[in-house]
């Protein structure tokens, strides 16, 4: 209650002062030294607070810029890894590369070159037709074909491991060409264990 009375007085005094030189103050409100000091500290505090807020905002903007940059890098990295680990598809009973699968493979090369520590395992797969045992060999031939292409394009052979799951792990269930086409493939996964 007291505080608000004082504040009201101050407001009146200040508003009268603002009203112009012609008007003389009707009442001179006495302000103690202690009150003046308190007001000065409050003023200083307000200035400091606003400066701190400005600095905080700048820091926050800086952090946001860094976050955005990191997100961009991560997105680019994810994009590169998606390129590297993108599946390559094959024709029936073929290990040879089609034009389309060659393009998928070509896109992997710069991404692999930019990441010399990145190691991959290529696992070849087949559709369900033919001898399941012989299909393991066909799947491996597909993986070997892809590895040979990458090595010929400058990727260190020791970075690429090959394997085959033949017809044992179909991507899509079914006994029609639509399923078979998606199952004749080679998958790329990052490996971290010893070659």
């Amino acid at each position, binding site marked *: 209650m007291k505080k608000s009375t004082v504040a009201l007085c101050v407001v009146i005094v200040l508003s009268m002062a603002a009203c112009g030189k012609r008007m003389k103050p009707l009442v001179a409100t006495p302000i103690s030294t202690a009150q003046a000091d308190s007001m000065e500290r409050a003023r200083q505090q307000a200035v400091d607070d606003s400066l701190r807020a400005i600095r905080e905002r700048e820091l926050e903007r800086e952090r946001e810029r860094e976050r955005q940059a990191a997100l961009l890098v991560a997105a680019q990295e994810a994009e590169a890894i998606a390129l590297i680990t993108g599946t390559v598809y094959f024709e029936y*009973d073929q290990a040879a590369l089609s034009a389309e699968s060659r393009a998928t493979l070509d896109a992997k090369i710069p991404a692999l070159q930019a990441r010399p520590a990145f190691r991959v*395992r290529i696992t070849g797969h087949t559709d369900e037709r*033919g*001898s*399941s*045992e*012989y299909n*393991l*060999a*066909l799947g*491996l*031939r597909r993986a*070997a074909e892809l*590895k*040979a292409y990458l090595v010929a394009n400058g990727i260190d052979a020791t970075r690429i*491991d*090959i*394997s*085959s799951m033949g017809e*044992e792990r179909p991507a899509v269930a079914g006994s029609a060409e639509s399923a078979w086409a998606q199952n004749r493939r080679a998958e790329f996964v990052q490996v971290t264990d010893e070659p």
Partner: protein
Amino acid sequence: MHTLVARTMAILVLTLAFWTSALAQDPRPPEGVRLALTYTPGTRPAVLVLPVDGADGDSVRRILERDLDFDDRVTLISLDATAARALLPRPGGEIDFGRLAPFGATAIVEPRLTPAGLTMRVYDVGARKLAREAEFTLPVDVYGPGWRMALHGVSDELGLWIFGERGAAQTRVLYTGGDGQIWMIDSDGANARRLTSVELALSPSWRPDGSGFAFAGVSAGRWRLGVSGLAAGSTRWLSAIQPRGIAITPAFAPDGRSIVYAHGDEGGTSLWLASASDEGTPRRLTAPRSGDNTGPSFDPAGRRLVFTSGRAGRPDLYLMDADGTNPQPLTTSSLALRSDNTSPDWSPDGVRVVYQAQIGGSFQIATLALRDRSVRQHTSDGENEDPSWAPDSRHVVFSSTRTGARQLWIVDTESGRLRQLTRAAGARLADWSPVLIR
């Protein structure tokens, strides 16, 4: 419903026809079919198994009858227990050949349960006398796996008495189940049980002494060769074989000391020879970069191998010496017809090779006689793959999609008669055991 009616009708008609012919038949055995003589293809002596007294008597008779039926060398005279019981000799009495004659049996089998097991008598109907008698001990675990196998052994002994050659009932089949694990099942379809629990287990191959098997498996994402006993969970990985690329299709040499398998890397898939005891370094058998080579099978002497190779383009069967020398083609596929020939298995008698041949777009089971290279096709419905010989060199187990889901089936290569072995979907890559005499 129609099928059921048709089937019942067919069974009735067949039964009537059988009875008519059996009753009309001369009581004397046909010419050339006598006890203890060799089996003559195309003829089937008729055998009557008498009922068996005792609590387990009906089961014993049923198992013996089924084994003789599955053996495909005899015609089983099928009498229900009550009808057949009237024919039983009184205790201590003689077989009444006069009363049995109308059934047309060449041989009468009389099993009798004893405290220790079983007494078997086989009567020669033509000679009207007891031809053979022997005691068999049966394990005490009645209906257990050991008891059933011992009884199958008795059936096989009957084959030996009648034809001079054992049957193949006392055997088991290893295979990859729908769950990607190795399973084992008795030759009559009983006692299916899982033996491995790894990431994936394919292509089981019996140790020649029947004590265990080798297989191709995946562990920690890599292909390895495993060896195992017949107790579940006794898998051990061979460390001499590097877990790189693929290591698949193992086959024991007949002496059980080495394993030939296919190992694939950047240079293709080659056959290698490793010690079964996991010692030393594996040795390459097929030439480097000679296409993909898989699925080896030894001849009974262990001197030669038959295997699948894509060295000429399409996969075909090839022969070579066990040390990898003298390779030569055994089949010639047609590139235009995509007629792949794969998955060979050399018969235990050394005479034939069974394999899967692509015929008219589907895989069928075929046998090739090594003497003149003549080929016979044994299946025609569905996809039929990965055949393996029974120790009788007559029956073949294989996987088939003839009824939809993949199952193991058995074909008698002589008569073409088929029976289904497994009842759980997805069974494949079977290997039939040697005779498992306890």
